[in-house]
């Protein structure tokens, strides 16, 4: 008898847990799925119950988002900036992380603490000074050569992305390098391979899991970022999230919900696809660094 009730309590307990888990899942799935459904609704459907299923598949929203709201161009811009920023980041961060993990030299301690301190710098505080610095640079260039190029420049934006991601990336990579055995590189150095060769041929390939994690995290960060992009790109070369913000607060254009939700889908979709493909790696990667900004 006693065992019976014990089993029942156990069942109720597990049931309760499932209810909690499912509630949380539903609260996540429903709004996201709702946006997908809303993106194929016609404008007039937004004035009824929000729970209504779309009457049809109104793909025109996406065409409008691409053409009228320029989301196609913004998407290309976003892709370019994200790819460029990742490239710059890896080229700059990998050697630095490796050296910081492996060598002690004059200033290495200071350098380490600089990068660590960088982890605490919230980019939002410094966007404004960065902007003013670039503006100052442009004004100077304007005086000297009659034209500046620092603002409104997607390449500069990519550089700023890479720079602000440096502390986290260097931290993550160098803690991974530290876990690697040093026997391989010692052997390579003894064999007469130079420092550069050792690093590029031996060590960097060994750090692949951490590199994958860095790419994933920073892809998400760069793709989704809007405050820096909004500040440094005042012209028409917007990135996707900024374009979406424009679409949400679209002034003077008529209330067009379908187009707005289509825009949201365009921003979400690449990250969702990537996530579904690499979700194992992503969640594994988290434990490498154990944190993010």
């Amino acid at each position, binding site marked *: 008898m006693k065992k019976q009730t014990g089993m029942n309590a156990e069942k109720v307990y597990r049931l309760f847990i499932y209810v909690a888990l499912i509630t949380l899942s539903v609260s996540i799935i429903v709004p996201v799925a709702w946006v997908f459904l809303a993106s194929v609704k016609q404008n007039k459907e937004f004035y009824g119950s929000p729970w209504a299923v779309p009457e049809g598949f109104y793909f025109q929203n996406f065409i409008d988002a691409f053409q009228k709201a320029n989301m196609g161009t913004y998407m290309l811009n976003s892709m370019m900036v994200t790819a460029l920023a990742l490239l710059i980041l890896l080229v700059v961060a990998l050697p630095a992380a490796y050296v910081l993990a492996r060598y002690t030299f004059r200033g290495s301690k200071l350098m380490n603490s600089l990068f660590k301190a960088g982890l605490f710098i919230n980019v939002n505080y410094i966007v404004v000074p960065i902007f003013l610095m670039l503006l100052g640079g442009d004004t100077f260039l304007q005086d000297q050569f009659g034209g500046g190029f620092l603002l409104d420049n997607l390449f500069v934006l990519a550089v700023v992305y890479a720079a602000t991601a440096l502390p986290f990336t260097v931290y993550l990579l160098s803690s991974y390098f530290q876990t690697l055995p040093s026997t391989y590189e010692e052997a390579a150095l003894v064999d007469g391979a130079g420092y550069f060769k050792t690093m590029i041929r031996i060590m960097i390939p060994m750090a692949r899991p951490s590199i994958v994690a860095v790419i994933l995290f920073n892809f998400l960060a760069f793709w989704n970022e809007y405050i820096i992009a909004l500040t440094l790109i005042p012209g028409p070369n917007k990135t996707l999230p900024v374009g979406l913000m424009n679409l949400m607060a679209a002034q003077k254009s008529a209330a067009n919900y379908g187009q707005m939700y289509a825009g949201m889908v365009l921003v979400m979709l690449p990250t969702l696809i990537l*996530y579904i493909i690499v979700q194992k790696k992503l969640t594994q990667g988290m434990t490498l660094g154990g944190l993010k900004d």
Partner: protein
Amino acid sequence: MSKTLEKRIFIFVCTVPALILLAIFMIVPTVEVFRMSLYKWGGFSNNKVFVGLDNFKILWGDINFIRSLQNSIVLIVFVTLITMVLAILFATLLTREKMKGNGFFRIIFYIPNILSIVVIAGIFSAVYDPATGLLNNLFALFNLDHLQKMWLGDQKIAIYSIGGALIWQAIGYYMVMYMASIANIPESFYEASALEGAGRIRQFFSITLPLIWNNIRTTLTFFIISTINLSFLLVQAMTGGGPDGATEVFLSYMYKQAYTNSSYGYGMAIGVVIFLFSFALSAIISRITNRDVLEY
């Protein structure tokens, strides 16, 4: 070429680009924030006036600043507590109770974390809309009309509505992180304590929690910084600080002063205060959560 010279060159070439980028785009701007907080400056004109600590003095009498400070603290406490408790709870349940669908739940819970904050703002304005919003219509569906609220229109709850969105986006990330560290705890610990007759709750407090404590401590510090950060991004994309400053957080107030009110120096002074505040908070938290770490 001697070996030491080669090594020096190698170290130099590897570190200098990173250092230059760090210096130009992080260190210099940070120093600028501190320096400009001592000036009265509109932002674009050429007359910067050194005013010493005046900007900071004005701050303490500025009720709007105090309000944004309160809002931020409310958010930090509310969001941190709920996110942490739920994340640890769900992580424990999923890992320890060997629930079916473990992998599925983990995938779902993580989704909000990969969304742009702009998208989250869009989602939640669809959720919170008073007339056609998902939340109010859900209550209507279950005849719970008395629970319907002006989620972003009622000043008493607007800040919690923002908090709700922040919890929604953060919970999965921290859960996955804690799941990883709980999974690392050797099963033998639990077996031994089960033999001693310890129940689930005892096990949680005597094994799970102490063993992942270090992880919680580190994440807590970064969680606070990230809450300050994300609350600003969300507010900016969602309410713009309204209604009447009810969702103003200190970073959004800093932006408002620096731009809209042409008080750049003052804005930077607010930045300095937030900076010091988050540092102090991190230090305090790391102090009070300091326990003897159990190793396994």
